[in-house]
């Protein structure tokens, strides 16, 4: 499959953000629950949870799933604090 010029421009716009230790979507999914509870609680997060938050911010599919998780658990969330 050949990329268009526009696609190569798009690829160049994020290619240099590639790092060796990125986490996968499946890794991120395993940490969604802890991240969601931390977010609803308003507390701090572990380094691992912070890495998952970073992945969610950059991955549209995980962002979509994470938003759905927040919506799904909103009524069952523990109170802040």
């Amino acid at each position, binding site marked *: 499959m050949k990329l268009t010029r526009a696609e190569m421009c798009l690829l160049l716009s994020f290619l240099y953000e590639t790092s060796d230790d990125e986490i996968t979507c499946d890794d991120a999914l395993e940490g969604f629950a802890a991240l969601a*509870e931390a977010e609803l609680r308003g507390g701090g997060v572990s380094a691992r949870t912070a890495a998952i938050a970073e992945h969610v911010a950059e991955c549209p599919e995980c962002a979509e799933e994470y938003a759905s998780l927040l919506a799904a658990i909103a009524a069952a969330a523990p109170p802040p604090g």
Partner: protein
Amino acid sequence: MGSTSGQDEGRGNEAWRRELRAAGPEGEAARRDLRALLVAGLGRAFGARAGAQVEDFAQEALVRVLDRLDAFRGDSRFTTWAMSIAVHVAHSELRRAHWKGTSLEDLAAYDEAGALLPEGAPDAERSLARARALAALEGALGQITDRQRAVIAGELRGMPQEEIGRRLGVGRNAVYKLGHDARRALLRALVAEGLGADDVRWAFSGEEGGAP
């Protein structure tokens, strides 16, 4: 997390895991309660978008949760973890339906270079730098495998990784690895050509001044 709402049916994490494994009425009650909790959560998250399918999604999610009880790490409520699996199941099924019948070759090429580039014609030096970066990238794209190129193209054209994987006969993690390996190879090739991040950023920006 010690707090449990009525939606947890008063069970803590360990009770959920123990009772879900149990045979007889205790196990049946736990599985029924968890399924009801998943249906309610999916209803909140998806509303009319999923409709009556939430019942099927919850059932599939329940099966996966039961298969993966040992994978629960205990760093959240058990029910939140189970819900994360349920929303993944739901999105996977909705994406599968959305992309059904679309091959990788059918995907429309991304063609909005204008949205990525600053307005106005670049000066000669910048124009040359862009052409050099694009030529180097095109050359590097010729060096990666067909499957890696298909993953990169599929991602750029908006197809979810799971759906790309379905078409290549591999799972989501394998798609990620193909794409990640491809990006690393492309990056190495560009850097070997003397094209660092600052050079490429400058070439495609509207910043004042000469090349870095």
